[in-house]
């Protein structure tokens, strides 16, 4: 299984890459000791969104299905967690039960929507339109749930104001106390999940399954003519990617103890597309690193002007489409490779180059 960490679907297979990876993980482990609690919580917040980005990278970059539905499943899982955690009481580990149930709910929603789209032969740009429509339907629906009649058990949905004060993730701890996952514990939980999900996706993408999903991205008919039921693989890809968006939704809701329809609607739905397109949808590492940096830059700018930050996102998407359609992170890596190769050729001289060719 470890052999599958490297393969044709993922950048970075050298010793240098893996040493760098371990170094980054090591720095991340000691970071809370060197930073203040606010910054640690903030990094955890930024990392929470990377699950949604990695999910979209899987569905769009590798599977070829442009989904605008990441915030739909983010919302389903986030609201699901809020309702379940509130109703279950939020102690004695019930929040983790709520997490699992909310993720199951998001995956089931993705399976139902995906089934009708994929078996109904919805593809290309229409895949994006249908997922965006479903996202907007959920956003508008939740926006009109302000009345007291909109409650599930003891949990009120609260319309545009959203749900708040649901219990954060916690586990029973020593002396009858509970360990709540906020601040540093949340940071470590999210960090561990990022590493597990990232490595898990690398293995998945370099496995037999990964070969099939890139084949169906390239030419679904050809993939079917090689004996693969493309529909099942597309559905599985869509459910896994959407489930990761759901994981972002649960962790976000637990982190802030609130969730609103605004985190599902149109501006929010466009964000993962921008992060992933800018970073490089063709590679999971590029998406993870690029999205984290874009999120960080967006947040820094938002402090000064939210409008400017949104404008920057638009400019970034435009630049990506025009200058580096494969994404800037991948573009930079490719540019550096060309530079290194060019220098090597320059050093070796034209004669040797001819022999190699």
């Amino acid at each position, binding site marked *: 299984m470890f052999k599958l960490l490297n393969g*044709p679907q993922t950048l970075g297979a050298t010793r240098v890459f893996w040493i760098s990876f371990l170094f980054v993980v090591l720095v991340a482990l000691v970071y809370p000791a060197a930073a203040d609690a606010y910054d640690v919580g903030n990094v955890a917040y930024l990392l929470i969104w990377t699950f949604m980005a990695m999910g979209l990278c899987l569905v769009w970059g590798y599977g070829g299905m442009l989904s605008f539905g990441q915030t739909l499943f983010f919302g389903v899982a986030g609201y699901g967690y809020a309702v379940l955690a509130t109703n279950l009481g939020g102690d004695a580990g019930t929040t983790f039960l709520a997490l699992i149930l909310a993720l199951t709910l998001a995956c089931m929603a993705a399976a139902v929507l995906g089934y009708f789209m994929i078996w109904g032969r919805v593809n290309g740009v229409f895949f994006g339109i249908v997922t965006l429509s479903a996202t907007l339907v959920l956003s508008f629906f939740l926006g009109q749930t302000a009345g007291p009649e909109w409650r599930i058990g003891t949990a009120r949905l609260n319309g545009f104001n959203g749900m708040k004060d649901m219990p954060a993730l916690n586990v029973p701890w020593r002396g009858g106390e509970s360990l709540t996952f906020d601040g540093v514990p949340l940071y470590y939980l999210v960090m561990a999940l990022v590493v597990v999900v990232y490595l898990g996706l690398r293995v998945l993408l370099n496995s037999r399954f990964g*070969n099939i999903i890139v*084949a169906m991205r390239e*030419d679904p008919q050809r993939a*079917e*003519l*090689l004996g693969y*039921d493309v529909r099942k693989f597309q559905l599985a890809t869509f459910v896994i990617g959407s489930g990761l968006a759901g994981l972002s939704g649960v962790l976000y809701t637990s982190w802030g103890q609130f969730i609103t329809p605004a985190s599902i609607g149109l501006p929010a739905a466009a964000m993962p597309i921008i992060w992933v397109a800018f970073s490089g949808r063709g590679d999971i590492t590029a998406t993870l690193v690029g999205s984290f940096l874009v999120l960080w830059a967006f947040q820094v700018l938002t402090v000064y002007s939210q409008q400017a930050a949104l404008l920057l996102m638009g400019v970034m998407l435009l630049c990506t489409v025009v200058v580096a359609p494969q994404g800037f992170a991948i573009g930079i890596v490719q540019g550096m490779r060309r530079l290194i190769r060019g220098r090597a050729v320059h050093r070796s001289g034209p004669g040797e180059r001819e022999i190699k060719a």
Partner: protein
Amino acid sequence: MTVLLETRRLSKRFGGHAAVSNVDLTVNAGEIHCLIGPNGAGKSTLFKLIVGLHGVTAGQVTFQGVDVTRHRPFERVKLGMSIKMQAPGVFKELPVRQNLRIALQHHVQPSQLTAEEDRLLELLGLTTDAGRPAGVLAHGQQQWLEIGMALALKPTLLLMDEPTAGLSPEETYITGELMKKLNSEGMTVLVVEHDMAFIRQIAQRVTVLHFGEVFAGGTIGDVIADPRVAEIYLGKTRDY
């Protein structure tokens, strides 16, 4: 002789146009069967009906005794068909080796994948191109790569739609020899083609289609000797 593939009164209409009408075709196990006809004869449509890319209007397709008329293409492939379409259907952005791997991973153990890929690369003359994206290969190499992918499935019946399209005469000849070699090893082959030199080289039995119907059939000698076939291919000769 065992019948491997059979179509009974197979028809396909596109609106008011009958592309294929009541075609009865039998492919016996172990033969190279060529389907020929002038442009617009319905060869490719019949091919797509056999592989499941078009739904039939009427009739039946049977493969190895199983009625596959309503089967999707991947189900037919699982039963032992392997298909090469007219245009090179390779995964252009993926490396040549990965193209083969996607086809091979069906039935080859992971530990033997690399060795089997190497064997096919050698057979196809693509060893030095293994790491290159398939899209940068020359047209003929892409055709061979796709043939290699079709062979990787170890099929009972290899179906090929114009496998020599865009190939040079030399490449066409080599492809024909490859077909004959595979056939001598027991593989049944059904080829849609209109290159008569290629057909002469490989065909054991030929079916001629014209206006969507079976027009003539038999050995390559029978078909070439049939003046009606020459007429539909070359037009009616006139004495002035």
